[in-house]
């Protein structure tokens, strides 16, 4: 199998530190005392809670329904009782809370009824729906709903399906062990993706520091009679970035502001393929995932953990050493420090690293940028981090966008190589979130403007319509008066002579015209009765009620004002 490999620019080679967690097979984490399942675990819409506090749920039961197409469902990880649906601290660098379902397990671990399906007999739309409702999301860390990536483009033929088993970040080994131990299920999952997307080739990229995983997958591919190509790629961070792996395997470079699908390539993580297979063929939604527990612990190992397990209980499995001073979620390059031990593990959690001052020493203080260009050489996206830093530092966000800050994948290569120890990625994250906030504000103000203008338009239209309606009513009344001119005070006032039949029509039109003019004038002039308080209005109503009988007795008075009062009263 000769495969030409390509190179991506930049990248770094940090110490991998992977071996310590590879000695033992994947362990099954015990049931925690309490599970905290955040509803929002994927990119896109927040699922709506479908259970109530006090309700009993079964393992795998839907507790949050997908909201829209770009959204993914959430399930109960075990059977038990819903204690509450409340805001709980999330696995997020902000340390803020998010709406979560808190479940107390009953220990029976009782599954909901599972229906294994043969996806080949189902239409592709149905398979995508199953994946959405099973909560299958990209487990590489981006947690993008997988079903949304499984519709082949109508315009661009699908050339390659790239399966990402590179796992380039130091310390993380969860995909490695998954590929070693569950290779066949991974390949079966890839086959589902293949059948939905119909690519010409399927390429599975694995960094060459995982020969066991490569061998296991090759064996599985042969055993299942598939024609997937398992390719060992050179170990270099971030070879596991989607765009980098696509570049290495296919030679295609995804341009700025384009997606890989525009070039006929789609990319999935191996763990995603595995969960997709479990969801379709076994009816098991995503309720657990494999998490590497490593770093400053006595027993580094990979564990299959229920989603929602609190960090506090999970770390006990590895027995953290005494000098542990924090826990990173994700790798040391792109991960963040967990805000609290109460935060739960989520679908995006691929690794928990116990940190210690010796493992991750306090970075030396930031020094001025000397424009050495080391960051530009390390950047796998060929950006100019020193320029972006300069303008992010000065909060000149327009300029950072000119230097394509949104193509930055925050891989951390630039910060890693910076001789001045500048935390470049932190500046870029800051600039990006500021730009997003500005765009949100802009959108909100555009919406407000549109609504304000529409309201003004509507006000004017309503005014015009009201005037027209009143004029019509007046005209109709005039016609009525023509039929019985004796009853009409207005007709009496405008016709002092004896009523001559020929004259009546003419007089009535004049009266109608006067009425119309009056109505128009009244609607045009603002009334001082607008904007009164309820008390004032009540008072007015009372006065009007008192006046009504008086007015009724004066009804013979031939002026227009009394006539109007009378007609409204009757």
């Amino acid at each position, binding site marked *: 199998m000769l495969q030409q490999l390509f190179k991506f620019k930049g990248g770094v080679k940090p110490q991998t530190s992977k071996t310590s967690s590879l000695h033992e097979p994947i362990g099954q984490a015990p049931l925690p005392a309490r599970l905290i399942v955040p509803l*929002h675990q994927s990119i896109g819409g927040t699922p709506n809670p479908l259970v109530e506090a006090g309700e009993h749920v079964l393992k795998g039961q839907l507790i949050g329904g997908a909201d829209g197409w770009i959204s993914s469902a959430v399930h109960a990880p075990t059977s038990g009782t819903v204690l509450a649906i409340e805001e709980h601290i*999330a696995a*997020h*660098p*902000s340390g*803020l809370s*998010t709406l979560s379902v808190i479940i107390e397990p009953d220990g029976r671990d009782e599954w909901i009824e599972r229906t294994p399906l043969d996806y080949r007999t189902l239409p592709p739309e149905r398979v995508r729906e199953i994946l959405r409702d099973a909560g299958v999301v990209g487990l590489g860390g981006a947690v993008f709903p997988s079903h949304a990536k499984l519709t082949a483009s109508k315009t661009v033929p699908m050339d390659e399906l790239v399966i990402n088993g590179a796992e380039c970040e130091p310390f993380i080994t969860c995909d490695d062990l998954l590929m070693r131990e569950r290779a066949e299920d991974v390949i079966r999952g890839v086959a589902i993706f293949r059948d939905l997307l119909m690519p010409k080739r399927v390429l599975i990229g694995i960094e060459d520091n995982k020969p066991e995983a490569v061998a296991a997958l090759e064996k599985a591919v042969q055993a299942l009679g598939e024609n997937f190509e398992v390719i060992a790629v050179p170990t270099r961070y971030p070879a596991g970035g989607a765009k980098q792996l696509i570049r290495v395997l296919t030679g295609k470079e995804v341009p700025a502001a384009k997606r890989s699908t525009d070039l006929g390539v789609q990319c999935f993580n191996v763990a995603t393929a595995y969960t997709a297979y479990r969801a379709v063929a076994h009816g098991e939604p995503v309720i657990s995932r494999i998490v590497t527990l490593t770093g400053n612990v006595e027993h580094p190992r990979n564990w299959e953990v229920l989603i929602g397990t609190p960090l506090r209980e999970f770390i006990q499995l590895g027995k953290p050493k005494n000098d542990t001073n924090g826990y990173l979620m994700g790798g040391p390059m792109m991960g963040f420090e967990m805000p609290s031990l109460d935060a739960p593990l989520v679908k995006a959690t691929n690794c928990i690293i116990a940190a210690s001052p010796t493992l991750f020493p306090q970075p030396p*203080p*930031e020094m001025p940028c000397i424009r050495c260009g080391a960051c530009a050489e390390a950047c796998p996206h060929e950006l100019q981090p020193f320029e972006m830093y300069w303008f992010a530092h000065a*909060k000149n966000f327009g300029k950072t966008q000119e230097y394509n800050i949104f193509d930055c994948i925050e891989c951390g290569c630039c910060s890693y190589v910076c001789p001045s120890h500048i*935390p470049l990625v*932190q*500046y870029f*994250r*800051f600039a*990006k*979130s*500021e730009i*997003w*906030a500005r765009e*949100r*504000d802009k959108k*909100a*103000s*555009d*919406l*407000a*403007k549109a*609504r*304000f203008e*529409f*309201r003004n338009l509507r006000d004017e239209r309503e005014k015009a319509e009201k005037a027209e309606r009143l004029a019509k009513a007046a005209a109709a009344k005039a016609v009525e008066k023509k039929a019985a001119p004796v009853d009409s005070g207005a007709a009496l006032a405008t016709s002092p002579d004896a009523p001559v039949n020929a004259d009546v029509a003419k007089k009535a039109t004049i009266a109608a015209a006067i009425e119309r003019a009056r109505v128009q004038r009244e609607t045009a002039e603002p009334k001082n009765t607008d*904007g009164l*308080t*309820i*008390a004032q209005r009540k008072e007015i109503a009372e006065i009007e009620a008192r006046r009504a009988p008086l007015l009724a007795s004066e009804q013979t008075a031939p002026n227009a004002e009394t006539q109007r009062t009378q007609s409204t009263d009757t």
Partner: protein
Amino acid sequence: MITAIVIMALGAIVLGAALGYASVKFKVEGNPLVEKIEAILPQTQCGQCGYPGCKPYAEAIAEGEADINLCPPGGMEGVRKLADLLGREPTPLDAEEKPKQVAIIDEATCIGCTLCIQACPVDAIVGAAKQMHTIVASLCTGCELCVKPCPVECIRMEPIAENIENWKWKYPVFEIKRAA
């Protein structure tokens, strides 16, 4: 002396005629500046600047009638942007700068008078006569125009709390340690 006067006068007349002709020929309708100014204003339509909406204020700025520091929701940031656009010096805001707010109706107290609905410039309040009203928070611009008309004072303004959706990464700050 006479020639000098005649020549200068002649020159002035020729130039004046040319300018007069040009001003007719190249007449521009409207002021495109208004749109640019309006794009900077936050569109809360609150009227705190003394003009009935953001567009009239933008027009007043373009005409040079209004100062650029009258928009409290735009804050100092807005003043700076306007100063940048118009080539003026940014002046301190003519009011207290407030965080972004959202109006909240105390639904137990609301008597359903619809006065706030009429006051809301962006139709962000739903309700009907004698029915409880509520505010569509995502549409509320925090303009406070609904607070005053309420006869039972059941509307209050609350600053928008930080959540995971609108959370922002902070500017990197480092402890400065004294060198030994």
